[in-house]
């Protein structure tokens, strides 16, 4: 059954991101950075994809390309400015998984289905929450 386009395409993914982030937080109580990386990865990607959808809406492959770009930017920042003890593949996996869930939420987004404002609000909240948890 087709999913209604009255709901912003990004909204289900935001709900899933919050649920998965909550699971990370509850299941790894000593490692809140796992949840932090996951949420920040999703937040940064929502921001990038919101801008991409505004500029070139309805192009699914652009969403894939920008999601992969977000993953690579995450690798770059983890390897440089956020590198402490090592470049941790677990941190990379968690933040990149957040990016992929954001990408899946935006792949069917259009300029007029309210996904862009949803993604921008989610981006701000998830980036603040993610960094807060990562460095708590």
């Amino acid at each position, binding site marked *: 059954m087709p*999913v*209604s386009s009255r709901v912003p395409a990004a909204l*289900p993914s935001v709900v*899933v991101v919050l649920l998965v982030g909550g699971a990370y937080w509850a299941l790894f109580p000593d490692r809140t950075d796992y949840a932090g990386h996951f949420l920040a990865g999703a937040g940064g990607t929502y921001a990038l994809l919101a801008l991409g959808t505004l500029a070139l809406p309805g192009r699914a492959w652009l969403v894939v390309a920008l999601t992969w770009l977000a993953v690579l930017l995450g690798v770059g920042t983890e390897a440089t400015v956020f590198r*402490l003890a*090592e470049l941790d593949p*677990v941190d990379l996996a968690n933040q990149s*998984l957040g990016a992929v869930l954001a990408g899946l939420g935006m*792949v*069917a987004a259009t300029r007029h289905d309210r996904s862009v404002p949803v993604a921008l609000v989610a981006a701000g909240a998830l980036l603040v929450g993610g960094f807060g948890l990562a460095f708590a």
Partner: protein
Amino acid sequence: MPSPDRRLSVLALVLTGVLLVVLGAWTLVARSALPLALDGTVTSVEVRHEKHPGVDDVWMVTLDDAAPRHLDRDVARLLARGAVVEKAAWSSTLTVNGTGHDVGPSRDAWVFLCLSPALLLAVAGLGAVAVRRR
């Protein structure tokens, strides 16, 4: 009916997500040394601090001239410079200076392994929603 372009895009993202779940799970399990074959002499055991010293410390162990390897704290604490280490891949016994020690996945590794089906379900579910959306 979604375009083939969207279907392929969703497939690419879903496959990326699956690879990332596997990467996270494998990395955490490998730190237990369980899947690793080890044979050599420890040349260094180094503790590197992360954001929360004592909680998320990184224990790097070097055998002979190999690259430093991140191991779980409980495994690395069995080792010291000069120790002779032997272990077969997927054996749960790590032999240090002739004495066997049990090794296995950490709590974090078990939790991630248990969480992995939910992560894969999240990826697949959002993929299905994206494909079915008008």
